[in-house]
């Protein structure tokens, strides 16, 4: 069969990196084509080429019935029937379903000399579309803000159908859906297939891929691994092809299962947040051990860590560091008692854009020895320089000088500056929240090695990550959270992606 779209030899460079290297990707009518790869493998970049947001540096995009193009524009992409439903849905909450569907394409009618909005016509058409996506019980005039995430997704699908999309790209559509909602989505996808539409399905959940996918294209670090028929691959094959290595044991100790950990360094007993985002969370961390937290977005992992660090609204529970109880009401208290947090969003909550590397590295040390909650105390430029030089050399921070602004460094080096900040302050427990988000592959592995050497030096390391390969490659033990609770804890020897994924939905293996 002739593919609706065929992307050949697509290449895209970013400053200093190759984002897409000779990628092939085609979509047949009536198939679900899965796109699989780790974060940063190039899936989003490829889809942005397809949507016309990015101009490729090489390659050809052939579209059935239109011709061959070196690049697409957003307008052309839409005209060719390509519709993308992003993970962060793009519906407008304060408009109703009808207005969301016809946004930018309002139907009009003639009334004498006037052109009027044809509300009745759009309502009828919306009602029909809602039937087709099993949302018949919703009225076209319902405000979208009142719908569940799953229903909003259906509205986006309805919008795609309304404008005769031939290809619908779904970027991690199931990431925030319940099991029932996933099955409802799959039912719609099967209907769309039967109507001859091509579906591009991006997901990290391997069991879903096996269930809904027909073909699968795997990307790795911007390169093309291959395109396969889904039934020909086991989930293990998919993982192996996606990461290209045995993911276990990469940054663990050579014989991790026999490794003797030290005594308990940190203990968290029955931590419960008043706002219910963490419920009765208990765990212990031994010296030399890296403890991972897996789970879906919103499962309560970051929320638990914020509560430990004192950055969250009030929480109850008992925290023990080296056997001594901690009293933490604010990040300042946490810092004084030896706890650091590497936050998820470097730019928003990690460093100071107006500060040099020296100042960003020294700030936690300075605050720790200050008095009156940071109001008292004198800064010491010579000491700051000494601390910053030490961290720059230890962590191999690449910067033109310590007086350079941290905001001018690459993401990976910014992360190292933040790591250096906590090292300089002499923390005993360091919590990492998505430590390698938006960081290139090379720096990632450096950061993993640094984390391992922290653990070896007796500093407690806790990692929250949404990338399962990251946790499996780095941690000695992995706790899984769902709905604010820990649902399972696995030693690395017994942990698998499947078990983690299952526990993340609230079931235990």
């Amino acid at each position, binding site marked *: 069969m002739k593919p609706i779209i065929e992307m050949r030899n697509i290449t895209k460079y970013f400053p200093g990196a190759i984002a897409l290297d000779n990628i092939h990707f085609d979509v047949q009518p009536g198939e679900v084509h899965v796109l699989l790869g780790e974060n940063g493998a190039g899936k989003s970049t490829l889809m942005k080429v397809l949507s016309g947001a990015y101009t490729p540096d090489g390659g050809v995009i052939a579209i059935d019935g239109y011709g061959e193009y070196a690049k697409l524009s957003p307008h052309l992409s839409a005209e060719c029937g390509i519709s993308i439903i992003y993970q962060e849905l793009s519906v407008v909450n304060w408009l109703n379903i009808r207005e969301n569907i016809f946004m930018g394409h309002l139907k009009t009618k003639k009334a004498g000399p006037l052109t009027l909005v044809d509300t009745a016509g759009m309502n009828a058409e919306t009602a029909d579309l809602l039937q087709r996506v099993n949302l018949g019980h919703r009225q076209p005039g319902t405000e979208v803000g009142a719908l569940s995430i799953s229903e909003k997704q259906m509205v986006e699908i309805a919008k795609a159908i309304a404008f005769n999309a031939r290809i619908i790209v779904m970027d991690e559509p199931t990431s925030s859906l319940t099991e029932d909602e996933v099955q409802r989505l799959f039912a719609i996808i099967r209907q769309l297939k039967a109507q001859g539409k091509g579906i591009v399905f991006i997901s990290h959940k391997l069991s879903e891929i096996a269930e809904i996918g027909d073909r699968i294209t795997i990307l790795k670090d911007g390169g093309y691994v291959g395109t396969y028929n889904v039934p020909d691959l086991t989930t293990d094959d998919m993982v192996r092809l996606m990461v290209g290595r045995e993911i276990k044991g990469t940054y663990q100790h050579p014989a991790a299962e026999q490794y003797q950990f030290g005594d308990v360094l940190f203990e968290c007993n029955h931590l419960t947040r008043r706002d219910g985002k963490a419920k009765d969370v208990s765990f212990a961390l031994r010296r030399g051990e890296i403890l991972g937290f897996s789970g879906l977005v919103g499962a309560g992992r970051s929320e638990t860590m914020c509560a430990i660090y004192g950055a969250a609204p009030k929480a109850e529970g008992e925290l023990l560091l080296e056997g001594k109880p901690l009293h933490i009401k604010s*990040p300042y208290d946490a810092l004084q008692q030896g706890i650091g947090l590497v936050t998820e969003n470097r730019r928003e*909550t990690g460093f100071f854009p107006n500060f040099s590397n020296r100042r960003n590295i020294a700030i936690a040390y300075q605050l720790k020895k200050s008095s009156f909650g940071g*109001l008292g105390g004198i800064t010491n430029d010579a000491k700051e320089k000494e601390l910053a030089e030490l961290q720059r050399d230890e962590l191999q921070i690449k910067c033109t000088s310590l007086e350079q602004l941290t905001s001018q460094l690459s993401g990976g080096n910014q992360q190292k500056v933040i790591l250096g900040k906590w090292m300089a302050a002499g923390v005993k427990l360091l919590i990492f929240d998505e430590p390698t988000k938006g960081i290139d592959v090379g720096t990632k592995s450096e950061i993993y090695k640094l984390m391992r050497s922290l653990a070896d030096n007796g500093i407690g390391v806790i990692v929250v990550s949404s990338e399962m390969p990251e946790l499996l490659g780095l941690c000695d033990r992995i706790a899984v959270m769902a709905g604010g609770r820990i649902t399972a804890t696995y030693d690395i020897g017994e942990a698998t992606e499947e078990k983690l994924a299952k526990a993340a939905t609230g079931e235990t293996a």
Partner: protein
Amino acid sequence: MKREERKLTTKQTKKFSFGEYWDRYSTITILALMVAVFGVLRPTSFLTGGNLVKVMEQSSITILLGLGEFFAILLGGIDLSVSSIMALSGALTAQLMVNMGLHPVVAVLLGIVVFGALIGMVNGVLVTATGLPPFIITLGTQAILRSLVYIVTDARAVSGLPAAFSKTVGGKLGGIVPVPIVVALITAIILTFFTAKSQSGRNLYALGGNSQSAWYAGIAVKKHTILAFAISGVCASLAGMVNIARLAAAEPNAGTGYETYAIEAVIIGGASFFGGIGKIPKVVIGGLIIGVINNGLNMVGVSSYYQQLAMGCLLILAVTLDRFFGASRKNG
């Protein structure tokens, strides 16, 4: 060997970068240009020692207000109430001396600590407690405090200040240097040390750069916000003391509109309106620039109608040059 040589020569012939120069010396360059232009136009009246001292004395109130305003702007906020704090603390101190017969030293200390610091702290508490933009809070307190000035003075000037007070604060040190200049300079030196060397000064820069990061790093955001507005209040009350001493009376309309001068001094001094960037000595120069323009234009014989026009143009020009040539602007 060859490579090293080349390295040396590139170092020697390092290209002059206007951006880098402008980043460092923009404010002092503007001041030097102003003085040069007026000096050439009026060498015998403008460029005399006596007149230059007068310019500095006239600038001292703007500088004091600007020094306080700097801290509100450093946090990415603003303090519109400085002019009213200046008037209120001046009026209350005058009444303490005139009507209650308090010793000038006691009255001045009360004026600075109670009226200046306390009112500033109220601004800070209102900002942190309500979460509203400082613009709105201080627009409100500006009006409230001005009204209080009229109420406590019955809208009449408080005159008859003790000579010991007006002769000292309004007089000259050693018969040469006007005391207002000394007050402004000492304040500037203390605050320069505070911003450059103290931990809380550093924290204020951090807070202005990224308040979220500051909170996660363990900086007490609320306490520091209150501190910044308290400093602003103290500086405004110092301006109030200087003002009543120079006039030997407390005018209820004193300082009306001066918050604009304070903001101009800070901005011409190169501070970022988005917070986190700026230096105290440059605020002093910013204040002097405003003084030189007003004095110089008078000397040249330009009608006072045109003085605001010149100020406005200079402000926009200075910030535009910063935006286009500033090498290390933070939004780069």
